[in-house]
């Protein structure tokens, strides 16, 4: 009897003990930094200017500075452009790749490998590979474009109009294969009997995709959209290798700007406020996405 109660006592605390390690790390590296950024965003503190080294409370001063900062406007526009330009195209390509390799054809595994290998590549290596690929003059990218009749500027990473596009091309090339895997997983888990029924009804290939495959893969698409969106905020490694955000901020996105403010200009207050803005953007998006998917579930 004694033993029983001792055991049930342990059982009562056990779940907490098991969750504790994960919880502690999330607390220390997600919850705490979020709160601390929020707190610090109300103070002026710049480590490289002696009189501003001690934090002073300035209320919403940092936010006011951000919203009236022309650099921030530029950076925000770039970020939006980057997301609009990379997320839908990479997802669409991921779906196309999945459809192409989800067939019983000889050597289809090699094609799958070709599409997926970019996922294994570190973004910084991808940046070097593409820096080489973009080389003006003999770089294959320009050579191919010229062969197709292009006669614009060749220095992609150094041109104010093309630098962001260059970064976006690398991101699409890098990510499409990753999204393909999720679609492939979704496709292979679809019931084949449905397809047979549709095939008998004489539906065309396009109709099958539009009315059957895509609706069935709704959850996959929502999941991929969520990770693609979050990734488009956090993957900025290629910017370091390709353009360093330039020329004159033409390819600077939010997280890169935050990094510059915090680690190059040592502006703690400003970068904390930027962190808060970034967090809010991420939360608004993921929660909206979540809501949309919940609503869709009710409709079904």
């Amino acid at each position: 009897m004694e033993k029983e109660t001792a055991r049930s006592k342990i059982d009562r605390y056990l779940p907490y003990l098991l969750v504790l390690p994960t919880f502690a790390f999330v607390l220390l590296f997600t919850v705490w930094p979020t709160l601390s950024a929020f707190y610090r965003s109300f103070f002026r503190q710049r480590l490289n200017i002696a009189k501003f080294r001690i934090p002073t409370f300035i209320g919403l001063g940092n936010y006011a500075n951000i919203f009236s900062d022309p650099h921030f406007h530029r950076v925000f526009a770039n970020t939006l452009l980057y997301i609009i330009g990379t997320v839908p195209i990479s997802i669409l390509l991921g779906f196309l790749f999945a459809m192409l390799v989800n067939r019983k054809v000889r050597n289809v595994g090699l094609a799958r490998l070709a599409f997926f290998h970019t996922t294994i590549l570190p973004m910084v290596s991808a940046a070097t590979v593409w820096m080489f690929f973009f080389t003006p003059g003999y770089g294959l990218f320009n050579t191919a474009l010229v062969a197709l009749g292009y006669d614009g500027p060749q220095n992609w990473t150094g041109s104010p109009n093309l630098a962001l596009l260059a970064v976006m091309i690398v991101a699409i090339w890098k990510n499409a294969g990753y999204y393909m895997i999720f679609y492939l997983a979704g496709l292979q888990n679809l019931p084949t009997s449905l397809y047979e029924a549709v095939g008998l009804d004489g539906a065309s290939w396009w109709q099958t995709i539009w009315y059957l495959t895509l609706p069935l893969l709704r959850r996959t698409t929502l999941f991929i959209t969520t990770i693609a969106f979050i990734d488009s905020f956090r993957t900025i490694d290629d910017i370091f290798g390709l353009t360093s955000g330039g020329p004159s901020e033409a390819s600077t996105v939010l997280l890169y700007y935050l990094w510059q403010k915090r680690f190059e200009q040592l502006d703690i207050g400003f970068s904390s406020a930027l962190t808060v803005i970034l967090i809010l953007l991420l939360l608004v998006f993921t929660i909206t996405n979540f809501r949309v998917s919940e609503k869709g579930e009710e409709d079904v």
Partner: protein
Amino acid sequence: MSNKWRIRAGKLAVNFLTLGLALLWLTPVFWTLIASLRPADDPLGRGNVWFGHTLTLANYWRAWSMAPFGEYYLNTISLVLMILGVQLITVTVAAFAFTHYRFKGKKELFFFLLLQMMIPTSALLAPNFNTISKLGLFDTILAIGIPYFGSAFGTFLLRQAFLEVPRDLVDAGTIDGCSWWQLLWHIYLPPSWPTLIAFGLSSVIWHWNEFLWPLIVTNSPSSRPLTTGLVRFTQLGEIGAQWSLLTAATLLVVGPLFIIFLIFQRRFIQSFVHSGLK
């Protein structure tokens, strides 16, 4: 008859599309590989962008000797193994608790985990840098890995797999007097290995490739991983635009990961397909 031909022509067109796109996707890395094998005295130029007269591994040896890549390698390998080791334990026990037990505050704790999936660690690099400095971990391999020791993503993924385990099996185990870790090891884990492998492989790839956070928290060859090491290498003054060296170094950094992936390719993709990622 004509319908049959149309289907055949359609299939052929799709095969060509697949082939074309696959080649297009492979070209950048393939060209990089070729460039890295060209002798330094036979540089790339107009009209001679593919093969020269000979191919050589000399660029690889030179790149290797110009920066402490060996040390970077050890750092990256210890980093990914450390993170993987800790994650496998934290993720497994947390997923088990969230699946097997009912307890007060379960929902609230779950919400906290959700936060980590919504706010990626990269967004928090500024405040996390302060934490790392305060903990006295700056410029250590531990500093790169510690923010990832708890993984909400892994916990969710594995919980999804655990939920598929038949309840009868769990009840039978409980009646037989299995302790919690016996239940976990003998009943929950065996059918969940594909998920755990998928998570493990993505963890290794993700952390092998991470750049920004290590750039911020490391400052010496003794803790610097391959990614930041490579970027430092590309910025070395004496390298300039020597593409043969740059491309060789780039491939040095990814070579082993590519080989591991080639070996486990099928398994990797299969485990994704069978895991809860859908």
